[in-house]
């Protein structure tokens, strides 16, 4: 058993995402005309020692996202915590 944290980092809505725009154009060309927006982000999985409390895991995950995984100037993040 260990804590399993899934972190999602995406560009803020106000930040242009040329990669997402290119993927959207490709999808539209492939026939998926209903796709009206694409935002490409990053997915990171973290494993924490099982001995920590859930509150500690969340606190550390928050710090990790603020300090390294996301750049608050351009990105926002969210994460989920599970014991597996």
């Amino acid at each position, binding site marked *: 058993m260990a804590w399993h944290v899934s972190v999602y980092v995406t560009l803020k809505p106000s930040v*242009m995402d*040329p990669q997402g725009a290119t993927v959207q154009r490709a999808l539209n060309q492939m026939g998926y005309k209903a796709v009206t927006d694409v935002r490409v982000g990053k997915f990171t999985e973290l494993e924490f020692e099982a001995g920590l409390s859930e509150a500690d895991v969340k606190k550390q995950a928050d710090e990790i996202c603020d300090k390294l995984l996301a750049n608050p*100037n351009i990105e926002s993040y969210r994460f989920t915590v599970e014991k597996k």
Partner: protein
Amino acid sequence: MRFSVPVFPGSNCDHDCEYVLRNVENQSVEMIWHKDTDLKNPDCVVVPGGFSYGDYLRTGAIARFSPVMKSVADFAAKGGLVIGICNGFQILCEAGLLPGALLRNKNLKFICQSVYLRTEETNTPFTNACKPHQVLKIPIAHGEGNYFIDADGLKKLKDNHQIVVRYCDSEGKLTPESNPNGSLENIAGICNVNRNVFGLMPHPDRSGEDILGSHDGNYIWKSILWTKVGVQ
């Protein structure tokens, strides 16, 4: 004058900086491995271009936590001159020494070409040898040079006259066509409020001699020398 160049795993313009400073400008240069914390008492720190840590996660995101960067931040806080070129600019933004961030180029391509820059501010230690609105021909080589800052941040940059160079055409006009990477308002380089930290995407380290296509990068180096030792 004494320059120090931090070297990260993946830096690849560290020797361009060393060469132009030592061989073209005849100055002394110390190369500082990123795990060292002693900057060797420099007058100016040059954070070089390249692909520190393979650009993993975000450009400059991991390099900013290298031990040497704490020393660079302390040096800057005391008023020391710091210039970051290309990946060096990205590292300074990630480290919070400069505001904003560098995003993926608008056209998603790595762009390697000569561009023109208009000197927007000559009242900095890095551009005081330039005339107002002087056009400099300097090359770029990057995939993530698309400068972004939020509306509040942009207002502060303008209020404090921190936008130092902008992409322009050969005549100094700011046009959408002369903006190679989609940077907000053609911004190519900015300084901090105290004007002792400067970051730019173009490479003055690769434009110190005509054989390289331009010697205009020397205006940046001459400015620094003029600031510190009073010769131009």
